[in-house]
């Protein structure tokens, strides 16, 4: 099995719902957004177009972050292809941050809170699960998967722009969409073989 995601750029309206759902699920500190939305504009007035591109860890088939990790903290699960960080083993050398072409890794270098007035009760609760001095990233919500749920970003996408499934199953919806709707990966020339695919915004 190889878990992956298809993101339909035609359906995405750039509402940041995935980003908020991810932050709520993982309780990440300010500046850390495992799932973020990149906006790109092109053309000239009055013919201007805007594209919203949700970006997360691509859970690459050939993850460069795993190769460069000196401790083995960055790992890829053989059973489903999820790339994750064993934070108890990470030394915070940030070699993986340099190696990741997708900006999916975040070094937790200081204790920040959202309002600059010290951590509130909610923040104290959710930040307790995070170590400082280590690198963190999206893990496709492993805890949710173990409960039979989808990752928070795809479960909460109100436009159904994110579809989660098994890329190795030719009958899965993700495989069908990639095959029939012209799915593509980001930066395929780097040889990372991402497990997150995109469907073109115009088709």
């Amino acid at each position, binding site marked *: 099995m190889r878990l992956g995601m298809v993101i339909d*750029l035609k359906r995405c309206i750039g509402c940041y719902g995935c980003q908020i759902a991810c932050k709520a699920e993982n309780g990440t500190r*300010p*500046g850390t957004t495992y799932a*973020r939305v*990149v*906006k*790109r504009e*092109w053309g000239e007035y009055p013919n201007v*177009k805007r*594209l919203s*591109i949700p*970006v997360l860890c691509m859970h690459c088939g050939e993850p*460069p972050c795993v*190769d*460069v*990790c*000196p*401790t*083995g*903290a960055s790992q890829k699960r053989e059973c489903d292809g999820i790339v994750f960080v064993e934070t108890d*083993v*990470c*030394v*915070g*050398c*940030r*070699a993986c*941050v*340099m*190696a*990741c*072409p*997708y*900006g999916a890794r975040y*070094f*937790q*270098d*200081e204790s*920040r809170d959202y309002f*600059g007035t010290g951590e509130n009760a909610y923040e104290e609760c959710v930040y307790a699960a995070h*170590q*400082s*001095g*280590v*690198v963190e990233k999206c893990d496709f919500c492993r805890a949710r998967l173990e409960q039979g749920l989808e990752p928070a970003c795809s479960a909460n996408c109100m436009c159904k722009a994110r579809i989660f499934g098994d890329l190795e199953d030719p009958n899965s919806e993700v495989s069908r969409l990639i095959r029939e709707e*012209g799915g*593509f*990966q*980001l*930066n*395929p*020339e*780097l*040889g*990372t073989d991402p497990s997150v695919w*995109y469907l*073109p*915004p*115009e*088709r």
Partner: protein
Amino acid sequence: MSSIDRLDLRRHDLGQVYRPQRDWIDGRGLLIVVAHFFSGIGAGAWLWSTLYDFRIGQWLSVACVLGLSGVAHLAFLGRWDRFWRMLRRPHRSWISRGIWAIGVFGLAACGVLWPAARSGPVGGFALGLSVAAACAILLYEGFVYAASRAIPFWRTRLLPALYIAYGLRGGAALLLVTAALGGDGFDVASVEAVKLWVVASTAVLVLLYLVAGSRAGGAARESVSQLVAGRISPSFYGGTVLAGIVLPIGLTLGGDALALPELVLLGAIGIASLLGDFYVKYCIVKAGVYVPLVGSAGVQRSGS
């Protein structure tokens, strides 16, 4: 810089087409450049000192590699208390190989410098091992950067060659400064002659590296333009070019006209070279930008 400023910077960077790397240069990230600077000149100094049997240089080399570089490495890590875990993956990671090289160098150098072990087979073995480990230290630094698939400016075999050359010339410069400060038992003239050749060759390597970068695609070209005409150009021209190349060559070739004492001149050449060695590493690391996230073939085809 306050937390809010750093957050704004991160948000700004994530919106950029060419996102600059900051984790290995800003704030505590600068320590990795400092660490590589000291381990490079330390390893270079060990090789020169061993070649010319210069005992003070060997002690200085150990102080640079194990002391200054070691402390900078540990201070750079987010969790220094787990540093020993970096020994676990020499078969995959250049960082791990470098940590092994530094560790082996430390043990072997102690064997060389320990009076009881200096002569005899143990001393000979330790000397050979220390030279091999010093070469490995010079080699690994460039490959740490070249292994970063996301930053095209670093991803070239010229970078390890550049780091080796700068490590060697930095080591020679350290010995020149030591000689100027009164270190004796060291043939200054022979190192000076070799050093001129090394400085000239590093100048050629820097030029080749920039030319290769400007032909290696969008992100690498952006890095080159930031070096030669952008936000890093003051450091590049002032530190790498002027202090690191022009001054050492100028003082070596035209130093006689200044009528300075020879050791003062050598010290000035050495200090200028060391500044240049630091700045070339600083500039190359600072110029690293990530490959664009979007703008890949698929998005351009579908969206434009």
